[in-house]
């Protein structure tokens, strides 16, 4: 069973990269829409300074910071894969779509994510001060 799963990932992750990319794009898109609804809903309710300050204190708690790191990952994936899809739609690099997904959307995406997530983790969650 485990060998079947690892085989599936090793072999089909490359061959069927477009399918993986499609599902990532769909799921991250839905997640971002849900986030935007929540985001706009909370901002709409913050009308006086006291509740605004209190809300910001709540949002600086580690749990919300962790959520922000997750949001960063979702935005990066959706944006970079969106660029890949736009290029494919324009007929650029259709034969290189697997490379564009793994090296561009996932590879460069991971570097961008770490560049943002590490400082967020150190200053937001560990509350480290120089």
């Amino acid at each position, binding site marked *: 069973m485990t*060998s*079947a799963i690892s*085989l*599936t990932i090793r072999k*089909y992750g490359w*061959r*069927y*990269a*477009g*399918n993986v*990319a*499609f599902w990532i794009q769909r799921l991250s898109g839905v997640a971002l829409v849900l986030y935007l609804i929540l985001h706009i809903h909370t901002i709409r309710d913050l009308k006086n300074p006291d509740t605004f300050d209190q809300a910001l204190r709540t949002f600086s708690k580690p749990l919300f910071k962790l959520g922000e790191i997750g949001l960063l990952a979702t935005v990066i994936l959706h944006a970079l894969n969106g660029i890949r*899809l736009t290029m*494919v*739609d*324009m*007929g650029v690099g*259709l*034969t290189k*779509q*697997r490379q564009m997904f793994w090296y561009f959307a996932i590879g460069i995406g991971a570097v961008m994510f770490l560049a943002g997530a590490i400082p967020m983790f150190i200053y937001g969650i560990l509350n480290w001060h120089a």
Partner: protein
Amino acid sequence: MAAFTFRLARTDPAAKANEFRVELEDRMTVLDALFLIQREQDPTLSFRCSCRVGMCGTCAMTVNWQPRLACQTRVVTLKSDTIVVEPLDTLPVVKDLVVSMEPFFAKWKKVRPALHPKDKNSKTLAIVPPKSEFGKQAGNKRDCITCGACYSACGITDTNEGYLGPAAINRAMLRLMDPRDEMTDERLKVLNDENGVWRCHTQFNCVAACPKNINLTDSIMKMKRSLLFPKRFNDKRNFINNP
């Protein structure tokens, strides 16, 4: 010689078994293994095949969760002791590994796949330079053997019964570019529909599945862009001009 376990999809509840142990030689294919099982272990096993050399597209089935031609898949290349063979996804199962190709060919007929020439009695040949646009496209894309692998791999045909599917769109594109053909408007109308090219979500599953390595998504994307300028197909000389 090496032993493999074949786990086959069976539809008959009275079928003796769905797991078979077979000894295969290095060069034997999944189709060879199926024949071996049918001859030596269970004669009630059903599957389709015809040419055995990968040019008829009859033996497409899902081998280890991927649509492939059974006759073109050597068992050792699957790098697994257990081989799971199932009928093609999306298409209705008739028995065991046999599917009905009816939905696939219904879509295929919708795009009018045959050549409808301007002059039926013409004795002159069309000259298609290999470097012209049509020449480049036709080189590999007319290799389609209508095996249905792309149709079964596609995630859209799976959920949307109306979608034409990659193979039909690919054939329609070749006919639209063909300078001898005149049935342009009818084909464009079928393609420029909500269930035509616009239903494709560029999952590239058809490209991954195609046993003939046809870049089907490229055809669909080309048609999407061409449909923005449908007048391109009025003068087909552009497709056979040398660049």
